[in-house]
């Protein structure tokens, strides 16, 4: 039995935490979180380094910037021919889904699936590191890279701003709104990519899963409100929910400077769910490995 005779009122766990002093408990909790954070940053910096030295990152970057550059050129071309109703920033961000479908699977497919296939996940999880830290470290490194790639497209607008002779071409409101939308929606898109990687053993499968899920979320959600079944009066709450989950509508709102907290909540809660799902699937897969 335990070494110190426990006073009668002490609970089951009190022999391990041998004090009831709240200050010490707070200090212990703080140390605990600092340790967690320490591992998180170790993993994050390692993951960033791995992403920065891996050729697939640069391939993804080249693919992304080529595609976006192509859209930008086409767009500028159309503006030079005839006057358009909206500013270039609004038009440009309407193509956001193309690079999302290309780049997010490329950036995230390796993260957990590859570690699992190589067996390094086993060595990683037998060190004093929690699954949550591993998943979060990988998630934020991928998110950082995703945002950095989008930040590069700022160069396009800079060039346009530098060389156009028409002052109203660059409207900073929609531009900031567009980037804000990319940053907020990217949280969820990258989390979906990580979740896809967490459930598969194979990079290709992970890319396929995340590609399909993102396509379903971004494009598929456009068609959901048109389903005849949802027009039934009894399903009105569901219809309302589907109407809110319109990624293109969110983009339009952000571009017009409307930041609806419900939309932000949609992405943030989706991100949290996807990450929790990733953590659980890594752990469940260990149990059945």
């Amino acid at each position, binding site marked *: 039995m335990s070494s110190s005779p426990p006073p009668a009122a002490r609970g089951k766990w009190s022999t391990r935490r041998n004090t009831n002093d709240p200050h010490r408990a707070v200090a212990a909790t703080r140390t605990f979180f600092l340790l967690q954070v320490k591992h998180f940053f170790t993993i994050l910096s390692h993951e960033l380094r791995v992403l920065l*030295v891996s050729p697939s990152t640069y391939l993804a970057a080249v693919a992304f910037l080529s595609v976006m550059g192509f859209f930008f050129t086409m767009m500028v071309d159309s503006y030079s021919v005839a006057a358009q109703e909206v500013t270039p920033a609004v038009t440009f961000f309407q193509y956001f889904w193309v690079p999302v479908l290309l780049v997010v699977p490329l950036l995230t497919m390796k993260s957990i699936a590859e570690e699992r296939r190589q067996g390094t996940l*086993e060595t990683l999880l037998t*060190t004093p590191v929690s699954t949550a830290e591993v998943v979060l470290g990988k998630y934020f490194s991928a998110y950082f890279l995703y945002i950095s790639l989008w930040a590069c497209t700022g160069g396009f607008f800079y060039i346009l701003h530098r060389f156009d002779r028409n002052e109203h071409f660059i409207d900073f409101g929609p531009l900031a709104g567009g980037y804000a939308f990319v940053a907020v929606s990217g949280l969820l898109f990258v989390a979906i990519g990580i979740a896809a990687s967490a459930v598969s053993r194979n990079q290709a499968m992970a890319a396929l899963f995340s590609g399909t899920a993102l396509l379903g979320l971004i494009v598929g959600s456009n068609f959901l409100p048109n389903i005849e079944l949802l027009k039934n009066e009894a399903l009105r709450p569901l219809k309302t929910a589907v109407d809110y989950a319109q990624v293109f509508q969110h983009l339009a709102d952000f571009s017009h400077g409307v930041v609806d907290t419900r939309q932000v909540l949609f992405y943030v809660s989706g991100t949290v769910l996807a990450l929790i799902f990733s953590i659980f699937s890594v752990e469940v897969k260990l149990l059945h*490995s």
Partner: protein
Amino acid sequence: MPDDPTPPPPPAIEVKNLVKSYAGVTAVSDVSFTVQRGEIIGFLGPNGAGKSTTMRILTGFLPATSGIVNLCGVPVASDPDAIKHLIGYMPENNPLPEDMRVSEYLFYRGRLKEVPRRKLSARIDEVLELCDLKRVRHRIIGKLSKGFRQRVGIAEAVLAEPPVIIMDEPTIGLDPHQILIVRDLIASLRGRMTVLISSHILPEIEVTCDRVVIINQGRIVASGTPNDLRREILGHSAYKLELAGEIAALTAVLAQVEPTLVIASHGEPDATGFRIFHLTTARDEPLGEELLRALTNDTRFRLRGLAREHPSLEDVFLAATRRTWEMVDAPQHK
């Protein structure tokens, strides 16, 4: 109860009635063993015997179905975080990231294992020296030969100076020279750390380990020092004879020398009429002299060779695992 820190320090590894079953298959069935601090213990078994599963349970990576596992007195099931500070683990096939340099990898792992940053680079130098990796410290792991990779794995396992090192097949796929180096490396940890290694390369285990646990079909079939196991599993001594003459009379002559001396097996006569006989006896003292005298004095036999056999661990292993197969095939024995 596990927590009893003061009197004698708890054993490094304590496993009691460990059971692990996956989807109806029992991988580990009622395994119990204890490893004292500073011991090097070998875990032997054919493929699929449950070695890796047991090791993964010891590291806290896999949960057990039932049973108790304590490392240095800390229960694995209820305190997995503390366990991770107590072990250095090298899994089967030693997975390593392909695109990192050796020193970078060790630095990363040292940070994850909470080696203080101030001490880390000195400690990395130390393990690089110990594992003879100084020459390759700036090389990329993916480009190293298997022997070096294996040593990187061992360096990583001992990096944080944990009290318990668990290595799953550390010498698999190495050439004899590399095996020798890895074996010396493991032997150099004796007394400082408790080492549990699994292998099915038997000479390996025999040279390196203080004690051997043989596991088959998820059960422990034998455990002890290699010498104890020989005595326990194979009977006491064995002799090999090269003899020509009347076979029928041999049994009687042997019985005169020592009543328990019997012919275990014999071969076919060669061109000159000599056969090879394998004899076993329950007596441990040397019988060679009496046997030689009895056979050379007898005109019915012509003796060409007599040797006392030193059974290898391999024989012990084969006999011990055969014993379990028989137990499995005939459950009424149990």
